[in-house]
């Protein structure tokens, strides 16, 4: 035993022929396989979840962007020209609603199942309008937003400011 003790511990481990590791080889290899499998399954499911989330977000972004474009072209809120949005019309339908019928017509063509609200802001931040359907204040769900640039007509066609029309959609709770 004397010369052995001088060796490195690794050599001691290799030269040991007591076979004390023998019955546990299976356990170690099985444990390695199980760990490998669990890691693989975790990576696959994580990738799938990320992919699903991304495709969901993209799908809803497309929908929100479609609504935003649709609203920007809505004749009910158009100003003196078709490419302008009238601030006066926005005043009537934004919260608090002054013209109930116009507000109703604004949301009429959209499915009642959709939960969204429209925010129009001027780029200088001086004016802001929020058009809301009902009182959907559910803040617990995810929001998907899409915006389009618009030109807002303040009073007359001589006084136009650039702005943004944003549609914010709440994730449907039943999907």
């Amino acid at each position: 035993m004397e010369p052995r003790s001088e060796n490195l511990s690794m050599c001691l481990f290799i030269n040991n022929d007591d076979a004390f590791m023998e019955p546990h080889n299976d356990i170690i290899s099985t444990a390695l396989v199980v760990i490998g499998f669990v890691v693989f399954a975790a990576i696959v499911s994580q990738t799938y979840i990320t992919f699903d989330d991304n495709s969901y977000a993209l799908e809803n972004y497309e929908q929100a962007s479609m609504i935003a474009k649709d609203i920007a072209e809505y004749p009910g809120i158009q100003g003196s020209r078709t490419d302008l949005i009238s601030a006066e019309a926005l005043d009537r339908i934004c919260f608090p609603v002054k013209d109930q019928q116009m507000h109703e017509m604004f949301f009429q063509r959209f499915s009642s199942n959709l939960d969204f609200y429209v925010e129009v802001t001027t780029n200088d931040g001086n004016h802001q309008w929020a058009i809301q359907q009902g009182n959907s204040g559910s803040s617990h769900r995810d929001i998907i937003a899409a915006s389009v640039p618009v030109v807002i007509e303040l009073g007359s066609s001589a006084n136009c400011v650039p702005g943004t029309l944003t549609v914010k959609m709440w994730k449907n709770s039943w999907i």
Partner: protein
Amino acid sequence: MKIREKNTILPFNILQYNDFQYFRNNDRAWIDLILSKTALIFASIIILAALYHLSADLQQADKQRHLDAIAQDFRSAIDLAGQSPHGTSSANISYSFDTYGPEGKLTGQPDAWVSGEYVGISYEDDNKTIHAVKPLTYRTLPYNETVIRDKLLNQFSASGESADPIVSPFTSSNVTEFLTTLGTKEKNLNTSAKVHIVKSLIYLKNGTEVRELEYVLVYQ
């Protein structure tokens, strides 16, 4: 290589005294071997079953994605009709589900249905039904133009066409409520036949003011 000496007690010597003693004194480790091999077999079975399940789940998820794509395509076709310029009815769009036909991942024909709120596609696979449901953006009705006009005529004594608008005392909310109730019923669609999608206008007259309500009609 130094091999450890085995216990020299022979089974027939000890068996007549005590079975338990025989097991205790035997150090050939055969029971160890059997136990570890059995555990290994069990572990392999469990791992193989898990692998099989994972691949089956992935296949199912793949089919689900495929159905989602079909539903999304159908939804886009309906939304496209709704997107046509305001105050005008759209051209009649013929939609067919063939785009994702049998050459895809599905072996049979999926079922489709539409209601005023959403479109849905379902597919039965190994006694399991997979669903894909998408909400619609625009107000939709699963009826054709004639049925809608007839129903409006019965309810409001006017068909809602530009020549025969709905007049007071009926308001737009009366009409919207009535049509929303109509749209709550799901209508099954035949996926091997074409589906017609068209945006239709319902006219309302209040004094001199004329308004249009926009509806997308989906029918076969």
